[in-house]
């Protein structure tokens, strides 16, 4: 168990150490990865500057892009240190790619900002960029001016870093053909470089040394320095120094009157994959090759390289344009990104609204469902109360009828009164029962009505030993409204009541049928009948007529003495 823990912690520490390593070339990728997840803040600016710096050596164009992004973001965030750094990087990158006007532009920007910061290092760096640009523009005087400024500051404040400014001084003196000073400063620089063991990465010192020695005519030393410098430059991927070294060697061989070697080394410049990013180096090589081929009396090759030189010069000129276009494209991309961002924002808003709408809808639906539930609950409560009431009334009425019945035995003299009481109670119960039945939506179907009628008729006529014949067509599909139901049933009851009371019939035939949209009902008996002309408006008839009216029905009554009676009803249903 302990062993496992130890191993794991060791592994963790090991991995941690790996990550802490100084970013090498593969480091650019990891930096770029970091960039992807970085938010638009000052950290990102610094990260961009870092990438720009790291890629300056071998990918100057990328370096420019990153530096531009850094600048842009820094300006947006009003992050001055970021702006300064970006300006310096841009000055560097433009110098490397040969766009000196731009480089100087940014150099001045950087210098102005540097003076504001009161940080000497910033001033040094800005001045150094400017010095370099002027150097490349062959304006050695101005370059020297800046270099001297730097030298003064460095001598006083950073004596340990004198090496760098000395290199620059050497270069500018070399350009000015002041070889002694050039050599002096080159040596001074090299001393400190070696002392601090910077030679592993401060690759520029070698071509500078080489140039200085070559300038003094000490070609062999020059060659040694050049040759030492090349692998170091290769290792560090510094295109400018590699090419400068090759050019230096070629120049030496030229001076040594060794055109083939000169040509060979000059060609190596062209062979360099990244040479395209250092047009000045290419230009130098092209010019040298043209010269050499001229010496060798090779007009085609001479022409070839002259043409190349011209095209490089052109491209140098165009490079500025390309960069400007790149700048433009970059700004366009930025704009698009902004548009996309605002679109996304809009989308998000829309989604939010949608979700909100959804939630509101859900709430509304939930509220409606709840309301319905409550309504149903209310209805159920109503039904329950109605039931209780019905039960209460019904039971009490029943008790009245029972008690009146019992009273009959005890007090026979009040028989008729008690009968009335009992009948009243029963009547109320009947009516209540009928209403409850009619109102109940479950009884919408016709068969319920038929059943009820049948039962009623049976009960009514059974007492008088009348035989009932109840027939009804299949009316299951028909539906009556509540009002129709009530009226039809009450009509029927009335009819049967009459028959039971007056007809004294042996048989009763009830028939209910449907024709088109009409319901027809017939109640016929073979009782004693009556004279229709006389008793047509009697009590029994009155209620029949009323019910028929309520139904909007056609009522026909046929009767003859001793031949029975028939009541016909016909009404329309929708």
């Amino acid at each position, binding site marked *: 168990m302990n062993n496992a823990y130890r191993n794991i912690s060791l592994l963790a520490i090991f991995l941690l150490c790996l990550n802490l390593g100084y970013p090498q070339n593969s480091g650019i990728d990891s930096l770029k990865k970091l960039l992807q997840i970085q938010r638009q803040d000052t950290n990102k600016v610094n990260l961009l500057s870092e990438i720009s710096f790291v890629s300056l050596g071998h990918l100057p164009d990328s370096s420019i892009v990153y530096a531009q992004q850094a600048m842009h973001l820094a300006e947006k965030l009003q992050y001055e240190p970021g702006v300064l750094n970006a300006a310096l990087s841009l000055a560097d990158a433009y110098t490397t790619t040969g766009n000196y006007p731009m480089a100087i532009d940014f150099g001045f920007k950087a210098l102005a900002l540097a003076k504001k910061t009161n940080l000497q290092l910033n001033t040094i760096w800005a001045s150094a960029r400017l010095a370099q640009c002027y150097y490349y523009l062959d304006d050695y005087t101005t370059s020297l001016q800046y270099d001297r400024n730097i030298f003064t500051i460095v001598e006083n404040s950073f004596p340990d870093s004198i090496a760098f400014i000395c290199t620059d001084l050497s270069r500018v003196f070399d350009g000015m053909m002041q070889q002694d000073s050039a050599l002096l400063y080159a040596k001074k620089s090299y001393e400190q470089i070696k002392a601090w063991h910077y030679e592993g990465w401060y690759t520029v010192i070698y071509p500078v040394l080489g140039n200085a020695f070559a300038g003094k005519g000490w070609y062999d030393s020059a060659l040694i320095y050049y040759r030492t410098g090349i692998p170091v430059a290769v290792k560090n991927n510094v295109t400018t120094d590699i090419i400068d070294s090759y050019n230096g060697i070629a120049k030496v061989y030229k001076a040594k009157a060794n055109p083939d070697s000169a040509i060979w080394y000059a060609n190596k410049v062209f062979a360099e994959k990244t040479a395209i990013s250092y047009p000045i180096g290419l230009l130098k090589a092209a010019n040298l090759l043209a010269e050499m081929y001229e010496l060798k009396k090779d007009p085609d090759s001479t022409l070839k390289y002259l043409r190349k030189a011209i095209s490089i010069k052109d491209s140098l000129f165009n490079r500025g344009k390309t960069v400007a276009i790149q700048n433009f494209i970059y700004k366009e991309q930025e704009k698009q990104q902004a548009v996309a961002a605002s679109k996304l924002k809009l989308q998000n808003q829309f989604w939010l609204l949608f979700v909100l709408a959804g939630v509101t809808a859900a709430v509304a639906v939930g509220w409606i469902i709840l309301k319905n539930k409550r309504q149903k609950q209310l209805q159920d409560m109503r039904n329950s109360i109605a039931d*209780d009431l019905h039960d209460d009334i019904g039971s009490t009425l029943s008790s009245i009828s029972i008690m009146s019945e019992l009273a009959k035995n005890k007090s026979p003299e009040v028989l008729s009164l008690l009968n009335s009481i009992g009948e009243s109670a029963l009547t109320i119960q009947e009516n209540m029962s009928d209403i409850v039945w009619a109102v109940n939506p479950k009884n919408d179907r016709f068969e319920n009505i038929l059943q009820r009628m049948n*039962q009623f008729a049976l009960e009514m006529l059974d007492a008088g030993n009348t035989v009932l014949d109840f027939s009804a067509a299949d009316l299951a599909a028909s539906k009556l409204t509540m009002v129709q139901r009530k009226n039809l049933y009450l009509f029927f009851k009335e009819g049967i009541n009459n028959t039971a009371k007056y007809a004294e019939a042996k048989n009763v035939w009830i028939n209910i049928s449907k024709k088109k949209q009409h319901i027809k009902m017939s109640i016929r008996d073979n009782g004693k009948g009556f004279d229709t002309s006389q008793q047509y408006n009697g009590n029994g008839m009155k209620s029949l007529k009323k019910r028929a009216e309520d139904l909007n029905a056609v009522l026909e009554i046929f009767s003859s003495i001793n031949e029975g009676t028939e009541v016909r009803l016909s009404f329309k249903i929708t």
Partner: protein
Amino acid sequence: MIEIKVAIFEDNKQLRESLKELINTAENMVCIGSFPDAGKLVRNIEFAKPDVVLMDINMPGISGIEAVHIIKEKFPAVQILMQTVFEDNDKIFAAICAGASGYMLKKTTPQKMLKAVEETYQGGAPMSPSVAGKVLQMFRSQSNITKHEFIQLSVREKEILSLLVKGKSYKMIAVECFISTDTVSTHVRHIYEKLHVHSKSEAVAKAIKQKLV
């Protein structure tokens, strides 16, 4: 003289007392207990030992239908006559399925009430057409519900049931089928019994409960 022992369960005080008196005036009956609700149901029945129980459907606490279940479980010999104002077929059907021998509407005349008690005691209570219809339906849809307890009505029973559905009285059925009214009663009793057994089967009880109770 046979004295039919009747127990009354009714929450309405007036009706309960008047029923008690009514029963007691009848020569062949006696009321051995009247209760306002079905609380302490088992103890009351144990104590009273009735032959016929008049059970109100709408009572506070345990419903009348529940009470029927309980009584039939513990005292299967007791005949139960449901009492109600409601002609609600569903409730009636549920009562019968629970084990009631018949039902009576409260609006019936006192004489008919006494007659109904007698008939119940004798084992043949009338069945209203709508209830008969429901019973038929019940047995028809049997195949969908049960698998093992397949209780079938005999041909005769089906016949009688369908006549009942048409609304014919026992008298009429007896005439049509060339049997005595007693035989009709017996058949109806058998139908009830089968219904009880049938409804006791779990699956069916569930189905009923879902539809009716």
